[in-house]
């Protein structure tokens, strides 16, 4: 959800299309990866496949931190750009 909202902000910004595309791709990829860890954990647990909670927790934590930090820096960059455009 965080990645989608930041991609939305990025799409509405006045950055050039190349920068918007680059940022959107990385945010989308990290968001999909974070969601995939949760889906994989859920599927493994529900089907009784080999499941390691520690590994799932570590992966989930790392990817959530990645999405959060990417979103934060992108919002800082967007804020700076809006200020420059408004000058």
């Amino acid at each position, binding site marked *: 959800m965080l990645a989608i909202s930041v991609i939305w902000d990025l799409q509405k910004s006045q*950055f050039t299309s190349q920068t918007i595309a680059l940022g959107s791709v*990385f945010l989308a990829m990290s968001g999909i990866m974070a969601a995939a860890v949760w889906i994989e954990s859920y599927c493994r647990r529900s089907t009784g496949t080999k499941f390691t909670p520690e590994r799932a927790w570590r992966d989930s934590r790392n990817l959530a*931190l*990645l999405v959060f930090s*990417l979103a934060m820096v992108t919002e800082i*960059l967007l804020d*700076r*750009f809006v200020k*420059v455009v408004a*000058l």
Partner: protein
Amino acid sequence: MSAPAPALVNTQSRRLAMRLADPAATLAYVSLVFGSLLVFFPVSFPRLVVQNWQNARLTPIMIFFTVCLNLGLYLRVAHQRFGKPGIVASACLGSVPVILLAGLNFVLQATIAHTISVNAPNAVARVNEEILAHTFFALIAAIFGPFLLIRLAQQFRKDNS
């Protein structure tokens, strides 16, 4: 002299399997450091980046930084999991950031040309912000790209075997 125990042989020669969550934490920390520098040095850090780009030093610095970081990360994971680092993966970690950063440098040139051609007010400041944003995304690409390629190659090898 007795032969080494089979368990030891298996442990020492086990091929290293990377997971995408391994570089994610490092990438997050790099991203947080970049964000902190932007917040705490809002004038001097962007100026430093733009000056280095104007002097054509930004891409070589980023290549050096990302290759060192990627190799360090790969060796750390290998050490933690008692895995054997592969030569193809090491070559990928050394070459992919160079190719990606060189390619993205051309994209940045196109971005700047586009920004200037629009004739928008405050074009110089806009170009500086574009350089800054592009530097950040290129850094993420150069760190994450090689590991993504290695992960895909592992999957391909697993499917074939």
